[in-house]
């Protein structure tokens, strides 16, 4: 692409010819205020805050959508442009309820920041003060239409990034309202509660129940870390105030998620209802009793000594590489709690954004590996990629959650049809969890251009494999089971049954449940928010988990050291 010469606020720059004035201004180092624009999504020029004066243009033009041209001279802070922005802010403030003093976003609000910057000391226009309902039908966050400025960021991220297309707009003009599906309450809609809309909302229209009023921008710190709940390994930003994580946001700069998170990564840790293990717990006459750490460690070490080499150490995906390496020094056999990826991947997660055909085999990508599921959905919605579901069961597959995005659904017996379609695609990617891995690999083997993305649950599964946890636990008998769980919530019932069938059970866990059903000793363990270490995702990408908060509790390393002397 050839360059064009532009002058923005007197700064000359040579910029690519196919970019907008806003992008050119960034290159020239000139800041233009924006409100509806967001770097992760396509600009639509809805709010007009970025209006700039461009010579030879009859009227002011929105910088976020207006293309540059050879010899363009733009003035972003001219009197005319500044007056226009003040006028627009006055219109925005006049429309709905934008009183800051009882809004949870005050101090973190982009609309408020702009009003300060443009020195709005009063509002010029009468306000009709329409009264809109607040939609609190979703579990984790609330929509207050009264705070909405109709920037449509939420609609666009839901469509462009998540590929869910839940949100839309009804009515026209001042009556416009953000709606879900065909105007149903948000909680009853196709919303998957990934919270991306919440993360991009510039005002207080979307309110996080956990962190509302808990801290404004000046009062919080942002700590970049990783989610360990599944092998996608999304980059997160922990929003921390007073040594407490109040909210989790997706890290826009992180691969592979690029700012997205799922419900589990964003909300579940902040809505944890299980009982925290603060002190070690031992069973005394069938009752759980809290004991001092030394005492619990002595009891556990005694049991370990008795069991000798007949120990099975079972680690969940919440165990970091470092914790795994230390555990690998202990006697006995090492197991992963979760199934492993039986087949080697030939695709990376990023390939999902290039594929023109997805063949998901026996896996529900709306339930597991959700952020990878979003990549598939947005591929279908945005790029015209096609999705085939292959799998058993009456509903076509365990892959039911993506059914609405699928072109066809085949049973395993009909898989030849999927292979035929894949043969004609430019970049077919087969995607499967452990259940579908064998079939997916077999089908991919029949298509020359096919790639295979083989996923397995357990956030740090690959890191643990590198640390020596080579195989998945399948009910092997041992005199003692040493379960290292972290904050794992969804524990397979089979595992609990196997643990209940004999042998002593020592569990290291952040929360009592469900381990108190089967354990003899429960030792405390920090959550991902509280520890630092390394995790390896499905791509083999090595990433750092960084503690957002400090605790006085014993670290996993100290406890393991106490157990294995």
């Amino acid at each position, binding site marked *: 692409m050839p360059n064009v010469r532009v002058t923005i606020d007197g700064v000359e720059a040579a910029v690519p010819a196919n970019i907008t004035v806003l992008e050119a201004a960034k290159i020239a180092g000139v800041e233009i205020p924006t409100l509806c624009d967001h770097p992760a999504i396509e600009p639509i020029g809805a709010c007009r805050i970025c209006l700039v004066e461009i010579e030879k243009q009859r009227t002011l033009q929105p910088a976020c959508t207006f293309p540059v041209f050879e010899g363009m001279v733009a003035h972003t802070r001219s009197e005319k442009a500044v007056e226009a922005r003040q006028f627009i802010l006055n219109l925005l403030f006049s429309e709905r309820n934008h*009183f*800051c*003093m*009882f*809004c949870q976003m*005050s*101090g973190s609000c982009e609309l*408020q920041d702009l*009003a*300060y*910057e443009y*020195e*709005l*000391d*009063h*509002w010029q226009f*009468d*306000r009709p*003060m329409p*009264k809109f309902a607040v939609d609190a039908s979703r579990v984790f966050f609330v929509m207050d239409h009264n705070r909405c400025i109709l920037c449509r960021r939420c609609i666009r991220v839901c469509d462009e990034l998540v590929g869910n297309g839940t949100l839309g707009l009804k009515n026209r003009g001042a009556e416009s309202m953000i709606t879900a599906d065909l105007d149903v309450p948000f909680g009853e809609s196709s919303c998957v509660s990934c919270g991306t809309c919440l993360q991009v909302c510039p005002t207080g229209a979307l309110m996080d129940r956990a962190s509302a009023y808990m801290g404004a921008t000046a009062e919080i710190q942002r700590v970049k870390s990783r989610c360990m709940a599944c092998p996608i390994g999304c980059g997160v930003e922990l929003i921390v105030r007073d040594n407490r994580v109040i909210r989790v946001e997706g890290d826009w700069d992180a691969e592979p998620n690029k700012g997205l998170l799922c419900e589990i990564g964003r909300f579940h840790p902040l809505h944890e209802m299980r009982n925290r293990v603060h002190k070690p717990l031992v069973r005394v006459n069938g009752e759980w009793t809290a004991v001092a750490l030394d005492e619990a460690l002595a009891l556990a070490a005694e049991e370990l000594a008795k069991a000798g080499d007949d120990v099975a150490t079972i680690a969940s995906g919440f165990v970091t590489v470092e914790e795994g390496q230390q555990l690998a020094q202990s006697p006995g056999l090492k197991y992963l709690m979760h199934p492993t990826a039986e087949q080697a991947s030939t695709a990376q997660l990023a390939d999902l954004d290039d594929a023109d055909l997805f063949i998901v085999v026996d896996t529900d990508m709306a339930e597991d590996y959700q952020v990878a599921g979003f990549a598939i959905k947005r591929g279908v919605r945005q790029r015209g990629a096609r999705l085939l579901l292959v799998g058993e069961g009456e509903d076509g597959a365990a892959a039911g959650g993506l059914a609405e995005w699928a072109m066809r659904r085949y049973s395993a017996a009909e898989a030849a049809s999927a292979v035929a379609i894949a043969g004609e695609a430019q970049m077919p990617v087969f995607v499967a969890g452990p259940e579908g891995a064998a079939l997916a690999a077999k089908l991919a083997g029949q298509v020359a251009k096919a790639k295979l993305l083989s996923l397995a649950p357990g956030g740090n599964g690959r890191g643990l494999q590198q640390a020596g946890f080579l195989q998945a636990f399948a009910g092997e008998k041992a005199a003692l089971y040493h379960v290292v769980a972290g904050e794992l919530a969804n524990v397979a019932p089979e595992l609990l049954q196997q643990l209940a069938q004999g042998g002593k059970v020592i569990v290291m866990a952040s929360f009592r449940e469900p381990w108190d059903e089967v354990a003899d000793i429960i030792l405390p363990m920090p959550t991902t928010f509280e520890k630092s270490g390394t995790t390896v995702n499905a791509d083999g990408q090595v990433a750092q988990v960084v503690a957002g908060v400090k605790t006085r509790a014993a670290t996993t390393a100290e406890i393991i050291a106490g157990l294995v002397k």
Partner: protein
Amino acid sequence: MAKITLCTDWLDVCSGCHMSLLDMDELLVAVLEKVQLLSSPITDLKHPPEEGVDIGILTGAVSNDHQEHVARRMRERCRILISMGDCAVFGGICTMRNFFDTEEVLRYSYVETDSTAPGQQVPRSPEIAKLFPKVKSVRDIVKVDVHLPGCPPPAHVIAYVLTELAAGREPKLTEDLLTYD
């Protein structure tokens, strides 16, 4: 140099803005060297003198006919009128009742709240001010010269505005001095 004179009054308000005025701490001494406070709701003299005053400050929204009278009287008697606080400038939290019918508001406040004793009636004495159907900001009623938003405006910003006016300059609320909460 002669001091400039100041009168303040409050309308539909929580009185927090006047608390902020008093919250100037030692700045108050410096301000009072340049400003003579003639009347305010927190002094013995409550009403601005008929012969006029340099600066008038109104805090609070305008919710009834009495407050409209107070606002107009201040406007008539002062040279420069400051509308101070979110309620005066924007209508503020008082405008919450604009979502409801006035009779509904009165009935709820005097009859239906959980803390109201049974048998209470909405007071209808002609001596009581009449609520307007909608709460208004001060600039909806009278011309305002200086807008000073904030809930409340920080004490140092109030001091800045008064000091600038005393020096004969027009105060300019830049980004660092503006607050809406």
